[in-house]
């Protein structure tokens, strides 16, 4: 009887631990496995966490007081906690990588300690139950502990992959390597470069958002082929030194900096740090390398670079776009006498295009040959991507908003005829400036939109403030809890027979 109860309690405990682990490791993954960020999240959400787990602590009472079958109700309590922590449908679901499995293994070993006590200590059930409940409630911190314990192994594995990538790259001495970085616009420029350079060359680019050191390592190890002639490597950064790390791996010969902005200010702490980090790319170029800089940006313009520089932009530079026209069908501009047309939306995309054209032209492709590929360019997913048709259009600008991009998206929205609806949770990771920048976004939105749907009660406070300040009628502001609900609301507004045009500005992942 005692054994049976003990066994039941243990099984319930392990099952509960499994779900708690799953939930918290998912958040950890979304936080890029950064302990500091995770601790911040735990602090933010401590009440809801405890509400869902603290009941386990009561398990010690039946285990101690109710004799032989006392462990049954203890097990039931664990099951209750399990049900309070079932996985919910997530925007970015958990990806069970090898790293997740390694964390799971270490966590599991730690979880076994209470079980050992329960089995072997004299009168161990009560003490075991107590320890089990501690383990369950303490899962968030246990995972951080497991992460620390695993650190030497993870570092070793990373090192192995990084060295493998270095070895592979050394076998490609002819490969032309172009680094692309910037606070925003780098993914767009990368994809444009892929299309344009493909007119003449076999091009490899880092896929999707693989712009970290390990993402680049994976691209080199899995996708690089002997037939490739050019490698366009997108380089992302959250901290000083991130770009240098990638440059030490790939050794780019050419570099492009697309923009400087207040992205990831929480980790960078200052714009000066952002500039310093992006320019780690320029500093890494060899003496015969070429640096391409967006001259519309003051910070990029003012920074001295020792290698040959090619400036581009809409205001000044070796490659300057003129006669720029934007409307709801796309963009048009003239570069060095050649007219370009594209289906892409957003004035800022002119800068991105000119940057890509500058690189392609410098690599020997005549501008005339680039007209056709520019016309064929499709929007990059979730970056002012036009979707829908007829009476219902959506400008999907869901990916990682930045202030300049958000304002550009509003400008684009303004170009469309119809009932204009803004759907947004506001911008994040802007550090101290976050409130100010969101308020400004609200003020600008008031000039363009007919309706505004804000996502997230807490998140949207500065937006509402900005809208109201600019005289936007309060009854046209709606607040929704999720993006899905917001879109439903947007679909419900009376457009007065006009076409419905919804701008989806920034869609935050689940850890917000």
């Amino acid at each position, binding site marked *: 009887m005692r054994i049976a109860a003990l066994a039941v309690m243990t099984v319930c405990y392990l099952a509960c631990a499994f779900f708690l682990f799953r939930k918290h490791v998912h958040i950890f993954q979304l936080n890029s496995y950064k302990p500091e960020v995770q601790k911040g999240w735990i602090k933010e959400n401590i009440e809801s966490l405890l509400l869902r787990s603290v009941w386990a602590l009561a398990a010690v009472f039946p285990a101690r007081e109710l004799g032989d079958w006392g462990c049954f109700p203890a097990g039931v309590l664990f099951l209750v906690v399990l049900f309070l922590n079932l996985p919910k449908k997530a925007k970015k679901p958990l990806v069970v990588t090898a790293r997740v499995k390694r964390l799971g293994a270490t966590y599991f070993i730690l979880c076994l300690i209470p079980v050992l006590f329960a089995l072997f200590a004299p009168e161990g059930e009560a003490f075991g139950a107590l320890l089990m409940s501690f383990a369950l409630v303490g899962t968030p911190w246990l995972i951080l502990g497991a992460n620390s314990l695993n650190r030497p192994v993870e570092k070793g594995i990373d090192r192995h992959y990084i060295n493998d990538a270095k070895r592979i790259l050394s*076998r*490609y001495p002819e490969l032309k390597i172009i680094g692309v970085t910037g606070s925003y616009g780098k993914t767009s420029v990368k994809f444009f470069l892929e*299309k344009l350079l*493909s007119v003449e060359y*076999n*091009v490899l680019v880092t896929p999707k958002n693989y712009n970290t050191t390990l993402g680049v390592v994976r691209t080199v190890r899995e*996708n690089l*082929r*002997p*037939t490739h002639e050019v490698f366009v490597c997108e380089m992302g950064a959250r901290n000083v030194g991130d770009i240098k790390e990638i440059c030490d791996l790939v050794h780019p010969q050419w570099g492009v900096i697309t923009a400087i902005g207040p992205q990831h200010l929480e980790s960078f702490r200052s714009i000066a740090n952002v500039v310093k980090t992006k320019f780690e790319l320029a500093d890494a170029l060899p003496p015969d390398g070429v640096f391409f800089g967006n001259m519309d940006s003051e910070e990029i313009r003012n920074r001295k670079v020792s290698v040959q520089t090619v400036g581009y932009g809409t205001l000044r530079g070796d490659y300057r776009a003129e006669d720029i026209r934007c409307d709801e069908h796309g963009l048009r501009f003239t570069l060095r006498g050649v007219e370009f047309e594209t289906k892409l939306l957003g004035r800022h995309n002119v800068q991105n295009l000119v940057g890509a054209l500058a690189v392609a032209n410098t690599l020997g492709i005549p501008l005339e040959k680039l007209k056709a590929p520019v016309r*064929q360019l499709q929007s990059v997913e979730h970056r002012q991507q036009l979707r829908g048709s007829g009476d219902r259009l959506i400008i999907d600008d869901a990916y990682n908003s930045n202030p300049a991009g958000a304002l550009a998206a509003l400008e684009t929205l303004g170009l469309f005829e119809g009932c204009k609806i803004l759907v947004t949770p506001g911008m994040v990771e802007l550090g101290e400036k976050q409130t100010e920048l969101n308020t400004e976004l609200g003020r600008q939105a008031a000039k363009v939109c007919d309706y505004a749907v804000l996502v997230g009660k807490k998140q949207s406070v500065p937006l509402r403030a900005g809208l109201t300040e600019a005289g936007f009628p309060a009854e046209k502001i709606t607040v929704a809890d999720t993006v899905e609900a917001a879109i439903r609301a947007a679909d419900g507004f009376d457009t007065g027979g006009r076409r419905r045009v919804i701008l989806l500005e920034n869609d935050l992942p689940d850890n917000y």
Partner: protein
Amino acid sequence: MKITVGLFFGGRSVEHEVSVISALQALKSFDKEKYDVLPIYITREQQFFTGEAVGKIEEYRDIPALLKKATRVQPLREGDRVLVLPYGRFGLKSKALAALDVAFPVVHGTNVEDGALQGYFRTLGIPFAGSDVAGSAIGMDKYAQKLLYAAAGLPVLPALRFRAGEEREEMARRMEEKLGFPLIVKPLDLGSSVGIRLVKSPEELPEALDEAFSFSDRILAEKAVQPLRELNCAVLGDADEAIASECEEPVMGDEILSYRDKYEGGGKGAKTGGSKGMSGLKRLLPAPISREMREEVQELALRAFRALDLSGVARIDFLMNAETGKLYVNEVNTCPGSLAFYLWESTGVSYAKLLDKMVSLALKRERRRGSFLSAIDTGILKNYAPGGVKGTKG
């Protein structure tokens, strides 16, 4: 890192042996600094073999012995690469001999040059040198290509197409009416002048038809040019840009150039010319024609190449009336014997350079194809309810 090229040759074709010769010539000429070439021999039984012996021409004197020394393999797509897997006694082994970056077919004739092998590479998903499926298929259809040449405004001889089941008398009547004698009878979809006959009068027709129909179900009857001179010109490139080679004039043994002439003799009864393939045939290179004639041939060749949307290297064969000097586009060879390398040497394009350009073109076509949307998720399967009257295209 060297690019790994899978050199495919042989196949279940009448010109199987010629293809072996062409391919092994090519094998010797690849730039070994840039390319790792793996020779893959396709037997008449449609099995793939590789190994060191497969790359040596002497070994083909005794093919059964060669196959015992060679390794049987199977190309397999894995992830985004095509692996060459060895076939052991118990089936495919899991450790690949090589991963191919590009396929290079050097094949002649039906089942291989006509788009079949090209289609196989498309299905496998590997870039391949030479013309694409459509170009290769039309290049082997003597009648269909005529229509495209004519539509492009190129000079062609009037012709009629016949199937084996049709009435012979009707065929003879139509030929007499529309074409007149002398005429040429030949199978529609073979290469290398197999089964081709000059018919000077109606009496000679039945035997000529019998011979042609013994090779194929479909034949072509075409007005003969007399007196005849033949001119060949090769083209290298694709639809965007292409260059024409030097012109040659193949010299005939019989009244028309036959298979025997091309591959079995360098002269009367001589056997040695044969193993050199097209390059061993007696030829006048450069062709003894005026500069204007040469330019005209080159221009027509480029236009014919473009009309069929070809790629890589192709040889366009012309017929010329020796008296009037009028030129006619005869037919194209989308994979010419010896890859027509001998036509390029005098223009400064070495064999190695020719092969390198063909690989470049293959990779260029692949990247272009990769940049287009090839699938749209319409959700048809999600909403499919069997038993609907309208079908799925709606």
